[in-house]
């Protein structure tokens, strides 16, 4: 089966979270009362002209810089024409000939670079709501700013596709240019797929439009891969045509959109309402200086700090988590904080979205201080873990839950005594351990923990017991 290589490229639309729209001063907000954030300009009324929002330029350059793009010194805007009710002017103002960012890349964990062909800025279309009889137009989304990030066809597995999108989301959230919420449409992907045998030219590609979930993207790629391979194997290679397809999640399959769109001639040409726009290198350099650390950089630092790779990955996947972690670290022990977040706190969150939002009642400072108590053996992990759920639920600081008793750590001579007692009391467990059943030691440690009501330090206890029985 694997004699066919999968070749995937992405075109990802990302909504920028600038305060205002791309060409006018209307609020860049939607979801509210329809047609409340619009003006003659974003409605495309006669006589109106665009004024390019400088923030959009900044956001796009920031995105480009964090994806290792070159920023040319000149860019221009173009018109893309089509007639549809979601487009008041009957053309979309976008960039085709001279986009704002060129030739970047995103690095996967494997070290493989997914090349970015370019990033361009453009306006979004209005939102259409259909019912059985009518089409309703909500212009609040009309002319909100987008960037489109176009990769080379460098992705060669479903796993790489997922990693690319997740990493892209993490980066754009970290630099604070977009929410990248696929379920809400602030990030949408068009996926290009083709297959070919090693050493042979690329196959005909199909494009699946408007994907809004990573798992659908995975399923759609798998489906398309199988479909292409089956057609080739059955001698029907000519039935793979360059076309736009739609993924149907109900049937878990793709179907041709068979819209005129494939034959559509967009008649791109330079928008005469803009001169060629100059981008000063000093402007770009200032933005580069102001860029926050990227997830990959933070992750590398965490690993350097002794956090294992998997934990570092999870901690930097969500911007809010990473911000919280870095803040908490200032007040306590990084490794212990990581276990709090990835353990007790993540357990309280069921969805990805909750993790993205990371809206918790504990402050970073409070969590940091709690970790410090544990680190300094003033409380045990057991106690920390027993109060964390209460803190998460009630939002009071850790000091509100710790009793005097909790804070006094158990005297080690007492623990030493209990360890001896445990070894004597549990000869079978000791025998099992010596016979190679390593887990058996836990039962002996458990004896001491029970006797101290969990206040003994488990690692110290285990160490002591091992000394005694060897």
């Amino acid at each position, binding site marked *: 089966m694997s004699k066919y290589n999968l070749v995937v490229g992405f075109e990802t639309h990302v909504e920028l979270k600038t305060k205002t729209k791309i060409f006018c001063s209307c609020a860049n907000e939607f979801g509210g009362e329809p047609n409340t954030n619009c003006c*003659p*300009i974003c*409605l*495309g*009324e*006669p*006589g*109106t*002209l*665009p*004024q*390019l929002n400088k923030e959009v330029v900044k956001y796009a350059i920031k995105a480009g810089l964090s994806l290792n793009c070159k920023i040319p010194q000149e860019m221009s805007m173009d*018109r893309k*024409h089509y*007639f*549809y*009710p979601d487009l*008041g*002017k*009957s*053309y979309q103002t976008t960039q085709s000939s001279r986009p704002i960012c060129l030739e970047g890349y995103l690095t996967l964990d494997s070290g493989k670079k997914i090349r970015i062909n370019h990033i361009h800025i453009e306006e979004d279309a209005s939102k259409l709501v259909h019912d059985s009889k009518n*089409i309703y*137009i909500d212009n609040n989304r009309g002319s909100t700013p987008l960037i489109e990030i176009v990769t080379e066809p460098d992705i060669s597995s479903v796993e790489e596709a997922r990693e690319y999108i997740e990493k892209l989301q993490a980066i754009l959230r970290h630099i604070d240019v977009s929410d990248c919420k696929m379920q809400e449409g602030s990030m949408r992907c068009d996926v290009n797929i083709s297959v070919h045998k090693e050493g042979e030219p690329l196959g005909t590609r199909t494009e699946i439009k408007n994907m809004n979930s990573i798992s659908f993207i995975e399923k759609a790629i798998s489906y398309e891969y199988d479909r292409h391979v089956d057609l080739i194997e059955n001698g029907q290679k000519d039935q793979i045509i360059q076309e736009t397809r739609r993924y149907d999640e109900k049937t878990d399959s793709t179907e041709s959109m068979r819209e005129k769109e494939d034959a559509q*001639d967009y*008649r*791109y*040409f*330079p928008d*005469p*309402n*803009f*001169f060629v726009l100059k981008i000063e290198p000093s402007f770009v350099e200032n933005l580069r200086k102001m860029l926050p650390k990227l997830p990959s950089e933070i992750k590398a630092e965490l690993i350097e700090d002794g956090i294992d790779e998997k934990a570092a990955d999870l901690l930097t996947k969500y911007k809010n988590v990473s911000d919280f972690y870095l803040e908490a670290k200032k007040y306590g022990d990084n490794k212990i904080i990581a276990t709090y977040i990835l353990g007790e706190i993540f357990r309280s969150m069921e969805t990805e979205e909750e993790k993205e939002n990371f809206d918790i009642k504990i402050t970073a400072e409070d969590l940091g201080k709690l970790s410090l108590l544990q680190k300094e053996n003033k409380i045990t992990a057991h106690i920390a873990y027993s109060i964390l759920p209460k803190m998460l639920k009630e939002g009071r600081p850790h000091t509100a839950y710790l009793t005097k008793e909790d804070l006094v750590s158990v005297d080690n001579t007492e623990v030493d005594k209990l360890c001896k007692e445990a070894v004597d009391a549990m000869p079978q467990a000791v025998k099992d351990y010596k016979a190679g059943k390593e887990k058996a030691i836990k039962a002996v440690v458990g004896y001491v923990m029970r006797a101290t009501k969990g206040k003994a330090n488990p690692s110290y206890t285990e160490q002591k017991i091992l000394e005694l029985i060897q």
Partner: protein
Amino acid sequence: MPHSLINLATQLQRKEISSVELTTEYLNKIKKQNKKTNSYIFTNEEVSLNQAKKADEIIKKGSPSVLTGIPMSLKDNIMTIDMPTTAASKMLAKYIPSYSATVYTKLLNNGAVLLGKTNLDEFAMGSSTLNGYFGETSNPYDTDKIAGGSSGGSAASVAEDTSIYSLGSDTGGSIRQPASYCGVVGFKPTYGAVSRNGLIALASSFDQIGPIAKNVEDARIVFNVIKGKDEFDMTAFEIPRTTRQNPVIGIDEDSIQKIADKDTLKVFEKAINACKKLGYKTVKINSKYDDLYIKLYFVLAYAEMASNMGRYTGIGFGYHTKSSYIDTDDFIRKTRSEAFGDDVKTRVMFGNYMLSGDNMKKYYYKALKIRHDLIEDYYLNIFNKCDFILSPTTPTAAPRKDHKYSSVEEGSLPNIFALPANLIGLPSITIPFGMSSENMPIGIMLSGKKNFDNALFTVAKNFEQYSEHKSLDIK
């Protein structure tokens, strides 16, 4: 001597006459005269008189500008929040804008009084003002003749004195050609000198709003009010102050001799004599792109027109079809078929053809490149020898309404002298300079380098002294 802006401003400020009186007089004159020429599409006495009252108050308070209380008109493709703006199209026949053009706002801030909206070719596509939805405009000198276009209503209204001045728009001669046919001054500013915000776009990289007035000084005054940077137009900027001592005048004698008729050449001869009297040196110039102007305009301007006309779908605003339709495409198709006139349809089809598939490279981008070369040639070759270019404004005086041109290219000849200024973005002015054997006005045109609008006005004023034009005196 027709009512000029300066004279009336003096009378208003001396309180010899009030703006309400003046405005009433003009509104009455429009009622009478519009039956003959149809210069105006729309007037609204209430709006005009309210503005006049405000102007009188400003004058009473003693803080007027030179435009305060002066009645004027606007071409009906300039957005006015208090009067409809139709572009002389069925598509916008009932359209009342939700905002005002920057130029209108600037005029109102100066106490101007809007008498009404003047006629044009549908969406400014034409050079005759014969093809609009609201009928033809006739030349006040001879109603069997055309007023020219597309700003024909504006030019005719100034000529017949139903407005003191007017604003038109010039994409390929649309201010200067009708101004010349109607015997008035028409000025197309440097591209970007005046904000296009609120001008219904025709060809965006060519369009400029400019004044049509009774003399050069009036035009200069109006231009100085409407010009300038605008937060609503990224292509608008502040032109620098310019002067030019001992200007050199370039004349493309060969092409003028070839194209202009006898009457025009006679008047033009007087303009050349005026150079001598003024002590201006003249030089012969020629452009190697002469025969390409019209072609470039067809490809580039029509492409932009086609794109700009896309927004008229009947969905957001304007006319929409009343017949049944199967889907959105059908709705849009029917709306556009029913509401656009033939001239608009032709240009939209032609323009889209130029942008479609391989034609994009074959025609559009090629023309774009030649436009660039042409601009370079003007600066390296022509403006290297001279400061201003002098020519007749049009090859003939206003033709009869029933005059038929034998080809599309011949039909574009009336704009042949005007086109380079739009292709290159130059300031250009027409001055009425003499009369034809049929007693129709003939104008001369002066164009300068980009940004040399002020210097151009100075030179134009000097030429104006030698004009043998005869103004109309319609009571």
